[in-house]
């Protein structure tokens, strides 16, 4: 190995280690998944000597979306694949396995994508899946400026980077999911409490029991076309006058501002 090549190999080793530390570091506590993915695209370009990289992720509707791209041009090339429903990234996503093509000027399975990629100056492409067991979340796409294939070792490194990114994404999904579920429970608990509080307020004002107070509260909510919890919240917060319920008359329509919320 020439001194120059040796230096480059050493540099790459150090950068590989740094990249993994960087990504794992980002996973601690409150991380931003987009930031992790941005680091991933930037580092895969450096490490694999690619010209550009892009990441596609599947959304809740099962549609692929461009999440990160090292250059604007690559972002457009990724979009082109989605719009034309053709390209290495889509094949990689559908099969869950790596896809590569060393020279797009030779026949490829992508008659629309190949000329577009060549025009953009990327004759060689490689895509590795972002997957965790059976769950395929998207893929990492690498674009090279020369018509050369990535070595097996380089593809393995790309896959390792994608695997780490996948952990970040899955973790982020689970955290969001937990926050949403906590929110639902919280909302249901608060709704029960606020209804009991409003019942107490009505019962005291009119001098009736809780059952009767609940019947009035429900009657008011129905006739004003509002939810029971919403009305109860209004009473407790003071924005709905207890008197408007106690008198049993038809309530005035809610103010414009309240309706817009």
């Amino acid at each position: 190995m020439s001194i120059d090549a040796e230096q480059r190999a050493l540099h790459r080793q150090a950068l590989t280690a740094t990249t993994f530390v960087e990504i794992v570091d980002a996973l601690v506590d409150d991380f931003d998944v987009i930031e992790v993915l941005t680091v991933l695209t930037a580092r895969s370009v450096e490490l694999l000597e690619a010209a550009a990289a892009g990441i596609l992720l599947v959304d809740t509707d099962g549609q692929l979306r461009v999440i990160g791209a090292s250059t604007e041009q690559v972002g457009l090339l990724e979009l082109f694949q989605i719009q034309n429903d053709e390209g290495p990234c889509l094949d990689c996503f559908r099969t869950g396995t790596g896809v590569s093509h060393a020279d797009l000027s030779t026949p490829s399975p992508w008659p629309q994508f190949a000329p577009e990629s060549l025009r953009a100056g990327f004759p060689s492409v490689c895509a590795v899946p972002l997957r965790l067991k059976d769950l395929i979340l998207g893929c990492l796409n690498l674009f090279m400026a020369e018509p050369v294939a990535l070595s097996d070792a380089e593809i393995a490194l790309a896959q390792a980077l994608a695997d780490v990114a996948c952990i970040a994404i899955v973790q982020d999904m689970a955290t969001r999911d937990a926050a949403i579920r906590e929110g639902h429970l919280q909302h249901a608990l608060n709704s029960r409490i606020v209804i009991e509080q409003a019942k107490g307020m009505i019962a005291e004002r009119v001098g009736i029991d809780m059952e009767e107070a609940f019947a009035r509260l429900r009657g008011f909510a129905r006739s004003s076309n509002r939810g029971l919890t919403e009305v109860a919240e209004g009473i407790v917060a003071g924005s709905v006058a207890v008197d408007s319920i106690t008198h049993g008359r038809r309530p005035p329509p809610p103010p414009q501002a309240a309706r817009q919320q």
Partner: protein
Amino acid sequence: MTTDRSLRIAVAFARAVTKSPAEGLCSACVELLVVSGAGVTVMGGTNSGPLCVSSQRMATLEDLQFTMGIGPCQDAFSIGRPVHVPRLDGSAVQRWPSFVDEAREAGIGAVFAYPLTTRGAKIGVLTLYQDGEGSLSSSQHDDSVAVARVLTETVLSLQDAAPAGVLAEGLENAMTYRAEVHQASGMVSIQLKIPVAEAMLRIRAHAFAQGLPIGVVAADIVARRLRLTDDSQ
């Protein structure tokens, strides 16, 4: 969680559920974790409701923490980590003054509170009571962490099945138990022309000052046997 541990927990819970859903959960905790008593509280913000308690003695202690708004349970919830009180000694007295007195009187020697938490979401607390003093064994601790995880998932999955904004049927008794406290807060807020949250504080203060369970005070207010006055605080 090892398969062995999760299997033991699943079996204990499954057996408990065939008895009576909520009550069963706490007796399963007592049996599984080999403690004197247990309570599971569902919490959201400053509100909380007991989902189950293993006995009346534990209900009193859980109520007491709610009345005063302090205790190992609240601490475990707010810091999101277990709080171990192997001895109700001086430092425990300093941290939760009257709770420790009452707990001692009830014959409790140690308290261990485990938050029901998952990925930053906090939904309640599992509190374990021991008659004797002393720490939990490390396997008791591991089991408690595992049980707390199972309870968290159980509570969340019960609520997942309910329509938005409606409390799941299985969690209803966490709220019905304190329904009167909230009704009483509404009444007092009208009587004293104060916000509901402040009315709740007045009721808590009254219960504490009179040495009565908060539920008893609330029931008296709702039945109009008791009317708090402006200077009753």
